[in-house]
Structure formats: structure tokens, C-alpha cells
């Protein structure tokens, strides 16, 4: 069987197993929506705030469904010995990881679509101004945070520590990256940190596609930062990969 069809088989198994695990499904889908509706209620009546919130929650969702999910999942699979078992089969590592990452990416796409629909019908946004721009930033954001999740799992010592480790990255990043408020209101030093990280640039791109309609050409610097992060994360993800649990 070709590597592509092996990856596809793995992807289908991952999807099946994902829906059988209600906890994972909840954290991937429901939590960002709760954030969206809670903050949406707080900001209701101020379209300017909602225009910031919706792309922000979309960025948060991309990160949660890829970075958080994969960092936790890879740690679990490594610690449980599933990776070691898979390594003993003819399944190529690349095909296996493609199935896993593809499944996480699917969750990100579903989540973005839900948020677009919610933005249109509940939060006064129109349909996206540029689907292409949306697709470009979504795909790059998913690639970046998926690679970051796999790379970060190398740092997490064991499964019990996984939520603490991922939240240590996730929570500060979403707070300073303008998920819930406009980045312009953030102190300069925090803004500088946020600008060095990828999330704010993913959100900028999604915001341009959803809200402002700024063309892709105006967001090339955002694209460049995310691309550099993606490259670095892919290198770390591959380099540090460990198939078995730490002693």
C-alpha cells in the first residue's frame, strides 16, 4: 500500500477514535465556543470589540485544536508505548504523523467554519471578505501550531504534566495576542513579545480575511513571521522526536 493510502487509513482511524472520546471533542469544540459566546455577550453592542473577538477566537481555536491537542496526544501516545508499537510495524513514521496531524487540522477547519457561521449570524460580521486569504492563514496557522505541538511534546516529561505544560504556553499566548481585546491596548513590552510569537500574526491574517478585507499583500510580514515559526517548529518536531517513554 502506498504511503498516501496508509496515511489516509490512519486519518480515518483517528477521526473515528476522536469522536469516541467525548472529553477531547468537548475541549476541541465546545470550549472555544463558550469563550466566543461569553465574551460576545460582554462586548455585545460594540461592533468594534466583536470585530476583534471573532478573529481572535478563530486564532485561539486553531491553536487549541492543533498545538494543545497534539502536544497532549503525542505525550500520551509516547508514554503509553503506542508510538513504540507503531514503530515496530511497516507503517512509515511520516504516514502515521500525517494521519494524526490531518485529524487535528480537520478539527481546526470545522472550528473555523463554526466561528464564521456564528460571526455571521450572531456577531454582526458578514461572510469572509476573502476566502483565499482565510485559507492561506488557516493552513499556515494549522501547520505552524501542529508542528509546535509535536515539537513541544518532546519537552513534556509525562502525560500528567501535559495540561500544565501546554497551558503555560497557551494561556499567556492567547492573552497577549489580542484574542479577547485589541492588541493596541496592550503595554509595549507585551506587544513586542506577542509580535515575536506566531498567534498574533495568524489572528491578523484571519482578521483581514474576515473583517477588514485588507488584501493579502498587506499582511506579508504576518505571513513571514508564521512561516519562520513553522519552519523552526518542524525542525524541532523532527529532530527531537522520541518513539518511546522517558525513563
Amino acid at each position, binding site marked *: 500500500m502506498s504511503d498516501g493510502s496508509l496515511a489516509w487509513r490512519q486519518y480515518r482511524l483517528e477521526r473515528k477514535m476522536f469522536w469516541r472520546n467525548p472529553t477531547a471533542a468537548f475541549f476541541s469544540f465546545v470550549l472555544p465556543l463558550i469563550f466566543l459566546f461569553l465574551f460576545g455577550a460582554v462586548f455585545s453592542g460594540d461592533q468594534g470589540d466583536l470585530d476583534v473577538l471573532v478573529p481572535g477566537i478563530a486564532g485561539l481555536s486553531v491553536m487549541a485544536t492543533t498545538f494543545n491537542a497534539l502536544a497532549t496526544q503525542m505525550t500520551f501516545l509516547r508514554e*503509553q508505548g*503506542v508510538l513504540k508499537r507503531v514503530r515496530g510495524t511497516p*507503517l512509515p513514521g511520516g504516514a502515521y504523523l500525517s494521519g494524526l496531524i490531518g485529524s487535528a487540522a480537520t478539527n481546526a477547519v470545522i472550528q473555523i467554519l463554526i466561528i464564521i457561521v456564528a460571526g455571521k449570524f450572531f456577531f454582526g460580521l458578514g461572510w469572509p471578505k476573502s476566502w483565499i486569504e482565510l485559507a492561506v492563514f488557516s493552513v499556515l496557522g494549522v501547520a505552524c501550531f501542529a508542528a509546535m505541538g509535536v515539537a513541544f511534546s518532546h519537552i513534556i516529561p509525562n502525560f500528567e504534566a501535559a495540561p500544565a505544560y501546554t497551558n503555560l504556553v497557551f494561556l499567556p499566548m492567547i492573552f497577549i495576542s489580542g484574542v479577547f481585546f485589541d492588541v493596541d491596548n496592550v503595554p509595549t513590552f507585551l506587544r513586542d513579545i506577542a509580535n515575536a510569537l506566531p498567534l498574533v500574526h495568524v489572528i491578523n491574517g484571519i482578521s483581514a480575511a474576515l473583517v477588514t478585507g485588507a488584501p493579502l499583500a498587506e499582511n506579508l510580514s504576518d505571513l513571514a513571521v508564521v512561516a519562520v515559526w513553522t519552519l523552526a517548529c518542524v525542525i524541532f518536531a523532527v529532530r527531537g522526536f522520541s518513539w518511546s517513554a522517558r525513563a
Partner: protein
Amino acid sequence: MPSADPAITVEDLHKFYDQYEAVGGVSFEVAEGEIFGLLGPNGAGKTTTVEILEGYRTSSSGSVSVLGFDPAERPRALRERVGIVLQSSGMYRHVRVREAVAHWAGLYPHPRDVDEVLGIVGLDDAVQAMALVRTLSGGQQRRLDLALALIGDPDLIFLDEPTTGFDPAARRAAWGTIKRLRELGKTVLLTTHYLEEAQQLCDRVAIIKSGKILAEGPPNTLSGASARYRVSWRDENGSPRSAEVDDPTELLHRLTGEAIARGERLADCSVVRPSLEDVYLELTADETSELTADETSEAAQ
């Protein structure tokens, strides 16, 4: 068809973890269709040796060949012909037993029939086959491990302590399954620290301790320093006596002759071939003094 080439060749294998030598010059061969046992206490170097053969670890020096391949390069052609039951390895929790075996079947070019394999390992009743993996008992999970190792119809199967933690009944059942692998013509390399298991299953056994092979051979004829006849009897004063000899014929002739001459019976006379257990216990004695070092190596793994 059995060929002249052995399934596994290990020559002067060494493995160091930092300064500690986990495997210190191990050599053995496993013929095609043979069930070969690596028998030894915990931390003896069994798992390290097997994991080098499985391609999970690389050797420090020496040469190994598995089905004609170098396992360190992990060629796909080799992985397609080998089934591995690790000492402990997890499985997806949210997958059903039959689904898992069917998924694994898709990874191999010429898999066996899913239901046949479930039957071989005894997970073929409808309830078990549909059970989610996370609901299986320890013994059932071990059977699933074996099913996943067999589904690709491998020529060679590694079983690393396949029955550790089993109750006696489950162990008997597992032995029955492993014996069926012989009928299927499979080559099996198994590690165990249960003597009875080695005696029941293996065509040949190597006793390994502190990274070295101390004795090797068929379990019943395993020769070593102590593989001699132990003759016990009571002498004319009624004191117990015993002697170890290579050939008891002459001694027995003398003892019976003397007893007849005295007009007495030769009391409490026995001639015992050392069992695998005796050989094992003698060879692995003074284990306690080295236990600390062995445990260090386990931890390093």
C-alpha cells in the same frame, strides 16, 4: 521451507549505557522454525538484546542479522516479516479489538485473516471482538498484543516476557497459543524469567545473566558445569551420602555390589539429572550481590 540460513544470528554483541555494560559479548543463533528462549533474571540484558534485534536500539559493537537484514537500519522489508510483542506497550484506548486488528492488517502486504487471528489468540467471541481496548483486562490486552503481532503473518515473532503478570490459568492458555505458532511454522524468540515457561515452550534456551550467556542448549539436556548425575544414597552407617558424576554406571555398580555383599538394601538411593531449574539456580547464583547494578541498567533503559 526451512533454509540453511538461521533466522537470527548474534555475534559478540555488546551494549553499553554510559559506563554500564548491559550486554557483554552475547552470541547465539536461532534457526528457522525454532522457538528459542532467552532465560534470565530481571536486568540480565534480555530486553536490551531483543530490542536491538527488533531495531529499537543500536548495538555498541558486535554484529546481528535478522532474516538476513541489519535491524538497526529498520528496513521496511524486515518490519513486514517480523511480529513484535513488547514487554509493555499501550494501545489506542478508543478503538475496538476487531477494528484494531483489521487496521493493523492494512499495514502489511500479506496479512492473515482477521477472524482467524482473533481465533488463534482467543479473542473471537462477539463481545470481546467488539470491546473497546480500554475495557480489556490485562490478560485480554496481552492477547490483543499477540494478535497485532501475528496479523501481518510474520516469519519471525519476538515475545518479550509474554506471560509476566498472568495467573496460572492464563499462562497455560498463552502457552497453548505460543505452541500453535510452532505449528504455523513460525520462528519465535521469547524472553522469560519463568523456568517452566522455557521448559514448556522452547526448543533451545540460552541462560543469560549480567549481559552474558552462561549456558545454552535444549532445556532437557542443557549442559553446564552442573549438568551431571547426582547420585544419593545412605552408607552402611545410615548417613546420607551423595556424589556428582558424569556417568553413574560405575558408581551404581559399586554401591549395589557393596550393599549386596553386606546383605543390606541400598537405602534412599536416587539418581537425578539436574533440571533446568537446578542449572538455572546454580548459574544465576549470587544474584543479590549484582542486583543493584542490574536495577541501575533497567532504570537506564
